């Protein structure tokens, strides 16, 4: 890590300053992954903030053990493609295993704030349900039900009308003030998904359905560190304005292995764009696209992947749909490549900026950026080789 005092979520300080006092007053525990690559530093920073706010005695737990860099061999097979880690020709920058209900011991020790880095998203909701209801970690039906609740909550407003509106067809009131979700969970794990009154957004079986299968493949086998959850027989019913009841999730034993995200130093992502408007804009944009492709390959000898889009004519769907009938008079050339070479990255920006004086007529609005690029792959690690640990600090 470049700086051992950082590596946690950039929003941590601002959020803790706002939340610590009201949550302590209400007796609400905070469970968060804002520790990211450095939960310990995040916990230490949170203690400083708590002390600054006069919250003496606030208990802050730090959950570590997801860093498995020393436990995974380079001969480990890749999850989603043939080959092993050794076949990826880039320096490894980190290996982190997804953890499950590891917030549980900290809840039992009455921590006010629990900071992890790689707790599986639904597990951050399953842990307090297990704690409060006294569920057994062997009861896969309850863990499946809790996982459904966590799964619906983990993307925040994606269940309360966020990411849903499609004007003329799907209406969401006051999306600018969309409310965050609340799950009212019963002992059997069924739950009512709702949101604060007076907020925007909407909760209905329709918004809940769209989130039910988000990042899910087989609805009957959703793997988490805690359980193999079964969402295939879930019932979703409207039970009042902005209230949808979910029930019927089940589960079976969790997977023997845990998923590990391996990050590689992928060099940089370079992107550069310039726009054309008015009559003939598409033809001028296409000419610019041809020129930059030709110059990168023939003048600069670049043989790697480069993406050249014409936003307004063909960009997001450029691979899927070859022909378009767009009649727009406002297009933007966007050029992107990844490289380990800073030089070729800077060349992309310079070539596109050069269109302002020596490309097709009327090009304007150059922007360019070069940002670090971390490439990831997934591997599996045997559960017994991951040793989560928890430590509590007091403000």
């Amino acid at each position: 890590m470049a700086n051992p005092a950082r590596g946690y979520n950039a929003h941590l300080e601002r959020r803790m300053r706002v939340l610590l006092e009201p949550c302590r007053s209400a007796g609400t525990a905070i469970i968060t992954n804002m520790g990211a690559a450095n939960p310990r530093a995040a916990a230490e920073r949170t203690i400083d903030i708590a002390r600054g706010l006069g919250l003496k005695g606030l208990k802050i737990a730090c959950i570590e053990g997801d860093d498995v860099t020393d436990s995974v061999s380079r001969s480990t097979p890749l999850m989603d493609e043939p080959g092993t880690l050794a076949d990826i020709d880039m320096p490894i920058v980190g290996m982190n295993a997804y953890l499950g209900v590891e917030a549980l011991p900290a809840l039992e020790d009455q921590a006010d704030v629990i900071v992890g880095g790689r707790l599986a998203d639904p597990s951050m909701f399953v842990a307090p349900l297990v704690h409060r209801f006294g569920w057994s970690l062997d009861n896969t039906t309850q863990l499946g039900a809790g996982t459904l609740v966590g799964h619906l909550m983990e993307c925040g407003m994606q269940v309360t009308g966020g990411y849903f509106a499609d004007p003329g067809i799907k209406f969401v009131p006051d999306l600018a003030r969309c409310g965050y979700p609340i799950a009212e969970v019963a002992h059997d794990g069924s739950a009512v998904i709702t949101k604060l009154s007076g907020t925007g957004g909407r909760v209905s079986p329709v918004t809940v359905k769209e989130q039910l299968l988000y990042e899910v493949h087989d609805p009957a086998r959703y793997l988490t560190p805690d359980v193999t959850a079964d969402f295939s027989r879930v019932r979703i019913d409207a039970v009042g304005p902005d209230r949808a009841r979910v029930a019927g999730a089940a589960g079976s034993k969790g997977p023997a292995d845990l998923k590990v995200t391996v990050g590689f130093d992928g060099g940089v992502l370079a992107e550069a764009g310039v726009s054309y408007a008015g009559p003939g804009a598409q033809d001028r944009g296409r000419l610019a696209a041809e020129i930059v492709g030709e110059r990168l390959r023939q003048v600069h000898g670049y043989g790697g992947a480069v993406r050249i889009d014409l936003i307004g004519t063909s960009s997001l769907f450029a691979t899927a749909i070859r022909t378009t009938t767009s009649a727009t008079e406002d297009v933007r050339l966007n050029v992107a490549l990844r490289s380990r070479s800073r030089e070729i990255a800077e060349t992309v920006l310079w070539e596109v900026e050069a269109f302002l004086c020596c490309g097709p007529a009327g090009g304007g609005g150059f922007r360019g950026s070069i940002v670090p690029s971390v490439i990831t792959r997934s591997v599996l690690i045997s559960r017994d080789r991951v040793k989560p640990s928890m430590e509590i600090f007091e403000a």
Partner: protein
Amino acid sequence: VKKQSGNLPRIVRDIAHARASDKGNTSNISVWVYDPADFELLKSKVTTERLKQTYPDLVRGDVERYVLEHLHGLNLVLQDALEGGVNSSLNLDSHGKSWSYLILRLELRESSAKRRHPLSSGALTPSGMGMDRRSSAERG
């Protein structure tokens, strides 16, 4: 949610809504009809075969389709369909979040030898059904 009134539905978006998400280089898109009466039509038009035929350059791997009969939804799982995935793709939308509209833009009355109005036929032989994966619970 209001259904478009008057005109016959033209594209999938007229009868269904959808959301796309990603894991690695695999895209999954769930598609849900507003009106359960349209579910057979959806199943007959949004098939694994049709997706592979319509988007061959994008969808490079297998396509699986899970059916949630009681919720009137399909879950389409498209392998090797994200141009490398979120950290590798050079697409502006490297998550493929907009892929939901690749489904919703599909015509309901595509010119095909198998064309038949499912609401009036009752006997459906939709293409691609053979590739369906029932969720394991339903299969068991």
